[in-house]
């Protein structure tokens, strides 16, 4: 895989910054500034960001996408970098562990049975993991 960006859109994004003060991460996380990523992409240094924690600080909350006049947004750039980071097995351990749980169980957590009895809740519904194994035999374990 390789990193290909819409450079004209990245350039407009770097010059605009209209979403900055609506971005929850920009407001709270010191140093979080995806414009720096955009500038590096334009300078041909996208790969430098594949191991940088900043790409994982984008919450995918879609606020910037809603604000973006060209419907491109910081999120598009950072999600593309996340995907490439995953493909090169550079993602944070917590991300990889969650994925492992999903491909093993088809869920991100197993139902707790004791509290269900306490609240008089019915038995949890049967899982569809067998179907997913059939659809994706090479991915699901």
């Amino acid at each position, binding site marked *: 895989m390789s990193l290909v960006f819409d450079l004209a859109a990245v350039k407009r994004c770097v010059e605009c910054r209209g979403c900055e003060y*609506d971005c*929850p*991460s920009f*407001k*709270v*996380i010191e140093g979080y500034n995806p414009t720096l990523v955009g500038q590096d992409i334009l300078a041909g240094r996208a790969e430098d960001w594949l191991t940088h*924690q900043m790409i*994982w*600080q984008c*919450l*995918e*909350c*879609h*606020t910037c*996408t*809603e*604000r973006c006049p060209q419907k491109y947004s910081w999120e598009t750039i950072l*999600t593309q970098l*996340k*995907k490439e980071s*995953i493909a090169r097995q550079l993602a*944070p*351990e*917590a*991300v990889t562990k*969650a*994925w492992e749980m*999903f491909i093993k169980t*088809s*869920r*991100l*957590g*197993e*139902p*707790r049975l004791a*509290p*269900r009895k*306490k*609240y*008089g*809740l*019915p038995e*949890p*519904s*049967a*899982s*569809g*993991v067998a*179907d*997913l194994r*059939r*659809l*994706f035999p090479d*991915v699901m374990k």
Partner: protein
Amino acid sequence: MNGYALFWGCTIPARFPFMEKSMRSVLNILDVDYQDLDGFTCCPEKSLVKNFNPALWELTAARNVSLAERAGLNIITPCNGCYGTLKGISSRLRTFPVEANRANEALAPLDLAFHGRARVEHLIEFLHDQLGLGKIRAKVVFPLRGMRLAVHGGCHLVRPSNAIHFDDPIKPAKFDALVAALGAESVDHSTKLTCCGGYLSRVGMQELNLTMAGEKLKELTELGVDALTTCCPECFKIFDSFQPLLQKKGAEVSVPILTISELAALAFGVAPEELGLKDHRVDVSPFLQKFEAIRRELTDELGL
């Protein structure tokens, strides 16, 4: 199709079974035709699974919606993540027939197909848009009058708006209207649209998540709201389960967290002890004391 399949997702059954209790109570009181359906998997979580394998994300989501469609049911989910995925895929496949055909070719061996007949609704969307505020108000026995509540709809209840098609993505109002229908005041606040930050914990950055959640909880503590209300287990987890961690670090935060189902159940007359509110990490007794005063006053007033 009039009936509903309940799509709980992973987090509620794994961490917060009491959320099921209050939502089922509310749906029963509202005479909603619902059932549990076998065969659902994780929705699957968009920010995780789609980034690993977009085709798997799309087909797994399409399969979940198709299961409801085959049973002649719509879907209600009380989770923003599940809503984002299931409604997102429904919007996409309803818009792009080529993609729907591709999904259906893959689903055919499972005797499933997506025709776009099943509606996917978040609980808030169901209550506000399908049922309507009038039917909510009609069931209120103890209006939450005098209660000052902060509403946290969360990101994926309304965004991305080009797929969710539910409420204004920047100034949503429907969750607030529900709170008002229960008799409470929705208190405006500057951090209203701020994300809970749950994603940060999921990528191993819990400290940053605490900082982000702390900003909102500090503001709400200063405003002296009676509670923060949520409609998503992830947001609930961050503001309720993580709040004691902030308190341990010395943050002056103290905000009871209640889900919309818990609020509605209380207003509809369900006894607080039936709802599992003691399983919240943040003590809800300040809220309940005020609510008890409302109940006593109304009980005396109406001779109940």
